[in-house]
């Protein structure tokens, strides 16, 4: 059995509700969408039991109805697991993964700055990547943001 099938089986055996959800797209590419409420336990299992020891990036995207957050995990052997959650648009928030991946800090700040997703538990720090004087409430990667800064002069880190 291939490495990808082993991973799929381990996930499905451990979490009943993942039956049929783990997709092997091609060699070394796997995708899995999980309910936001179960994300923490699945991530922990993937990292600690399946050795997905490296977080390559976090992609946030706006699909119109809400946000999707994709964690690109990888492990030795080159397999990438794209772990996806969906969150509602209003009061959008996720929990930080920095206790597992210190490297996630910049990726999570990007989600906050560019999409306006609140990251709970993220340590205090300087914003990234927008300038300090960027107005509160302007999130460039949201689909309804068309390049005009709002008249809002309130600044996030004033």
């Amino acid at each position, binding site marked *: 059995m291939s490495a990808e099938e082993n991973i799929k089986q381990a996930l499905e055996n451990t979490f009943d509700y993942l039956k049929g959800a783990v997709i092997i797209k091609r060699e070394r590419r796997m995708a899995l969408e999980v309910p936001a409420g179960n994300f923490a336990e699945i991530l922990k299992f993937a990292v600690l039991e399946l050795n997905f020891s*490296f977080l*390559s990036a976090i*992609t946030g995207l706006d699909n119109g109805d809400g946000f999707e957050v994709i964690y690109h995990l990888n492990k030795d052997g080159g397999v990438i697991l794209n772990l996806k959650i969906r969150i509602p648009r209003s009061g959008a928030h996720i929990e930080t993964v920095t206790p597992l991946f210190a490297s996630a800090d*910049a990726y999570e700040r990007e989600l906050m700055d560019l999409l306006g997703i609140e990251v709970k538990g993220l340590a205090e720090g*300087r914003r990234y990547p927008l300038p300090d004087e960027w107005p509160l409430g302007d999130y*460039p990667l949201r689909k309804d943001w068309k390049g005009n800064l709002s008249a809002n002069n309130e600044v996030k880190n004033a």
Partner: protein
Amino acid sequence: MHDSGEVHIPIGPQHPSLKEPESFLITLRGEKITAVNIKIGYNHRGIEKACEERTYIQDMYLIERICGICSHSHSTCFVQAVEEIAGLQVPPRALYIRTLVAELERVHSHLLWLGVAGHEVGFDTLLMYAWRDREVVMNLLASLTGNRVNYAINTIGGVRRDVSANTLEEAASAADILEERTKYYIGIVTTETTLINRLSGVGKLSPQDALRLGAVGPTARASGIARDVRADDPYAAYAELKFKVVTDNSCDVYGRTVVRLKELLESISLIRQVIKNLPDGPIAVKAPRRIPAGEAVSRYEAPRGEDLHYVRANATDKPDRVKFRPPTLANVQAVAHMLQDRYLADLPIVVAAIDPCFSCTDRLLSLDRGGQIEKTVLTWEQLRQSSIEHYQREGIDFSALNKKLADKM
């Protein structure tokens, strides 16, 4: 602030020791750094958003310009994702040409880095030598692709230019020169005691920390982490070529130097393999203007480490979302850790040792003679000749020494 014995020093966003805008707020106790607060993002140009508003072909031009040093890395990473979504079978010859340009880019980038590293530790002769030799690979890239930087060799479905037998010969002789020079630099770096002492033990990053902080590329490999996308997740022609993943266990700036130099030899060997095994056939397949709905993640081993692109297509001619995670973003997070409890004087070389991206410019020189509008473009030889004459007028003449050197070569 002085009562506690601590001094805060802001370095950047504009500072002579930094090659691009980034800011470090350093807390010092005596000469030792006790805390580092890094702010990046000054180069944020909104390219991800801009890509959503342009067609895939227009995005190629934009993505090529994310970085002036590893432009091929980004454009290849992006086309690979788009080709995967569209289900295109890229012809083998195109994959080999991509690999050739990729390894030449790595050679130019590592030589550029070697020069910068030499400069940061006051070894400017190394800068002059390394950048002179880098011209060999820059000229080759120019004859291969038409450009010294922003090669624009990729297109969705293949490459835009074929290589001629003549260019391959040129590449083979360039590889010989580069190999000889690289061996010379390896000799210097492994025997020159001032260099070894200056770089050893500086910017320490243990293997555990490299993993924890998500370091990539030569930065991680110099901490003993054998991670290289070319080997782990092969793309282009790498699955058919032989090379070693170079690692070192020094875990410091010295190790990062050795890793990059040994990687140069691997790149030169890869270049020779591509020249020898370049398959015949077409160089591109036709790509649709509208890319079917889907998503893909593509990885690429850039000179600085793993580059990751995520693309989502929505069956139009414009992508729905494009996400880039360039290697420096992964590496910069280890810098604060490397600087902890180190001397302030180590900051420039520690920052330089992760090889953060900065732009390099074209070498064409335009002279404005005495206020006339007419401008002249100098060739390399003319530029060299004009500088020799300039110094001779100043009473400085190196012609005897040059002749001696030329006889020796």
